[in-house]
């Protein structure tokens, strides 16, 4: 094994794996929090487990995972319970209730952590806040490649226990989500119906919250308890911008989280020194920054829900409406006997003459503009919808004939067959002929 590889395995592999496992677990569980609009439950729990951790630490005098998990689990349960109590019995608005509970819990944790008993021990607030991933190293990783095929290598060497804890939580979380996928779906989407059908929503959602708490605790050494929030929310939010299927949402969130972890790790641990900087950057911070950047990017570039896609759709719609208005104008003037209309005023009014020409809907003849066959066909449909709507508004909505034009002018652009009024006569309220529909136009039931 080359020196570089060994260096990587001993110095980085465990840290990288820990970050990735922590972050993917959070990403998977976070989807449910975001969908329930309880993203801040993650926020609350990751703040509020602090006193649980500290008390567990004080009692056991070690950073062994089991007491830590128990302490944090109790603290998380207490937070959820107290929040519910403050909300239900105190009648405090949900967000504020959460704010009250977790900030007091957190303050308690901060207070305890700085107390005399813990002063000289290596648990300080900043390590809980933003992690110490740099300490996750495999000092005695063997140099001989064949050693990695032996089980003993993994049991006898000093692999940081945090990695095992994170691996266990990862497996539990994925197994939980896979096994109870449908229960989670129904209790997240429609808890009332679930309860009415006898599915214990509180149990399923309670288990979810407990898992979030466990993930928070397992992650605190790798990425720090506050940055866990980023991982609970950002990947899930990113996936939310990309898909409309729950299964895809969860897998995508996990995937995004994993990629952020790897990219963030290298951006924090390796990139600065590679660029000639003296020190590496905080890895947990960098993972969060990458997650934030990815979310920002997706906000802009998502094909379905991104800013750009939405702007393009809006522009297309605006363009279509402008072209249809042009076609309508030409059709009406043709009805009045003037098949070709001077272009100049239409240009001046900002009508999309060039675009419509390019689409083959209109053609110019000696500085005048007229409809082509396909243009005429589209205009007929448009005018038909316009006049049908006018008829509908007068007959069914009881509006005066001279008041309906503006409304029909808007509604004419909606061309789904289901949203067009049925024909009741040949003339519109103004006595103009309604162009025939594409076929006999039977109403679809």
């Amino acid at each position, binding site marked *: 094994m080359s020196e570089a590889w060994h260096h990587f395995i001993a110095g980085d592999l465990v840290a990288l794996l820990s970050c990735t496992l922590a972050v993917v677990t959070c990403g998977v569980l976070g989807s449910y929090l975001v*969908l329930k*609009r309880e993203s801040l439950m993650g926020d609350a729990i990751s703040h509020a487990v602090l006193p649980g951790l500290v008390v567990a630490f004080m009692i056991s005098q070690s950073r062994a995972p089991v007491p830590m998990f128990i302490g944090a689990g109790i603290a998380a349960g207490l937070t959820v319970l107290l929040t519910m109590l403050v909300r239900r019995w105190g009648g405090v608005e949900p967000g504020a209730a959460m704010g009250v509970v977790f900030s007091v819990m957190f303050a308690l944790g901060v207070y305890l952590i700085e107390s005399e008993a813990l002063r000289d021990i290596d648990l300080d607030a900043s390590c809980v806040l933003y992690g110490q991933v740099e300490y996750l190293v495999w000092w005695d990783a063997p140099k001989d490649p064949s050693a990695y095929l032996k089980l003993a290598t993994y049991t006898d060497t000093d692999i940081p226990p945090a990695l095992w804890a994170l691996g266990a939580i990862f497996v539990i979380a994925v197994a939980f989500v896979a*096994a*109870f*996928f*449908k*229960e989670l*779906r*129904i209790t*997240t*989407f*429609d808890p*009332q*119906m679930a*309860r*009415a*059908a*006898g*599915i214990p929503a509180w149990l399923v959602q309670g288990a979810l919250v407990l898992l979030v708490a466990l993930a928070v605790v397992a992650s605190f050494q790798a990425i720090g308890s506050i940055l866990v929030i980023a991982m609970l929310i950002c990947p899930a939010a990113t996936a*939310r911008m990309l*898909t*409309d*299927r*729950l299964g*895809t*949402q969860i897998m995508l969130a996990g995937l995004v989280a994993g990629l952020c972890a790897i990219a963030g790790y290298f951006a924090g641990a390796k990139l600065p020194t590679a660029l000639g900087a003296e020190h590496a950057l905080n890895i947990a911070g960098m993972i969060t920054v990458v997650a934030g950047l990815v979310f920002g990017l997706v906000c802009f570039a998502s094909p379905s829900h991104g800013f750009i896609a939405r702007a393009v759709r809006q522009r297309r719609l605006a363009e279509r409406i402008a072209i249809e208005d042009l076609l309508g104008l030409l059709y009406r003037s043709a009805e009045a006997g003037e098949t070709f209309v001077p272009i100049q005023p239409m240009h001046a009014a900002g009508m999309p003459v060039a675009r419509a020409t390019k689409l083959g809907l209109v053609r110019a003849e000696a500085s005048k503009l007229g409809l082509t066959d396909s243009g005429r066909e589209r205009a007929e449909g448009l005018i038909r919808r316009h006049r049908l709507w006018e008829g509908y508004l007068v007959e069914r909505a009881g509006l005066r004939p001279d008041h309906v034009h503006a409304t029909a002018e808007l509604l004419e652009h909606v061309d789904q067959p289901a949203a067009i009024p049925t024909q009741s006569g040949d003339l519109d309220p103004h006595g103009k002929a309604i162009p025939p529909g594409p076929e006999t136009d039977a109403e679809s*039931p």
Partner: protein
Amino acid sequence: MNATTPQLTTSALTAHPEHSAESPLSVHALTVAYHRKPVLWDVDFDVPPASLMAIVGPNGAGKSTLIKACLGLIPAAAGEVEFWGEPLRRARSRIGYVPQRESVDWDFPVSALDVVCMGRYRKVGWLRRVSKTHKAAAMACLERVGMKELSHRQIGKLSGGQQQRVFLARALAQEAELYFMDEPFAGVDAATERAIIGVLRDLQREGKTIICVHHDLQTVGSYFDYALLLNMRVVAVGPTSQTLTQENLVKSYGGRLTLLEQAGEAIAQMGPTR
């Protein structure tokens, strides 16, 4: 009145509620209170089997509360609710529920078919996946409400009426014998309204019982054959034509007469019920 003459009266302590095993729902002295204010007060009624019943009443009359209290979604201060003479816990699998459309987040990443499959979850059981048979059953329910073509669309991209149909299909998928529906006709288009009432009548023909919270007095007469007029207490309950009399409507709606006159006309036109 003999209460003025001091006379001792006795009564048995062991009060067994009279069982009405054939009645799908019987409610005895149901009282729900929010702090000191009653929301429902001493509500008492039985629903005959295979009826299509409307719960009608003004805003704040406690209509949704009544349904939710029956289903155990909100605690009752007093009273008893029995389904086929049994408590809720034993009858749960025979009961379907269609909540108000506003009660869920329609932006949720599920398709129409996914939502309908939720109606089968109880039948599928814990830890098992929704099998092809269950999916086919869900699909059949979607078809029944005329939504087969849109089965894979995300629910947020459906119109209000279509969403309501999906909810109805989900209730159908539960294959229950008693359905509670909270305002199934609220904010839906005319075609959906027709489709829904068609399905409800089919269900009734199959011998199932449907209880709907309904807000439109004008259509109560033509849609429902049994009605419960509620205004915190039961004003009247029985076949629609006997329940929705002018007098009863005044009792539950107070002085809003224009509305009542319209409803009265609608009922007059309806003639004797079947």
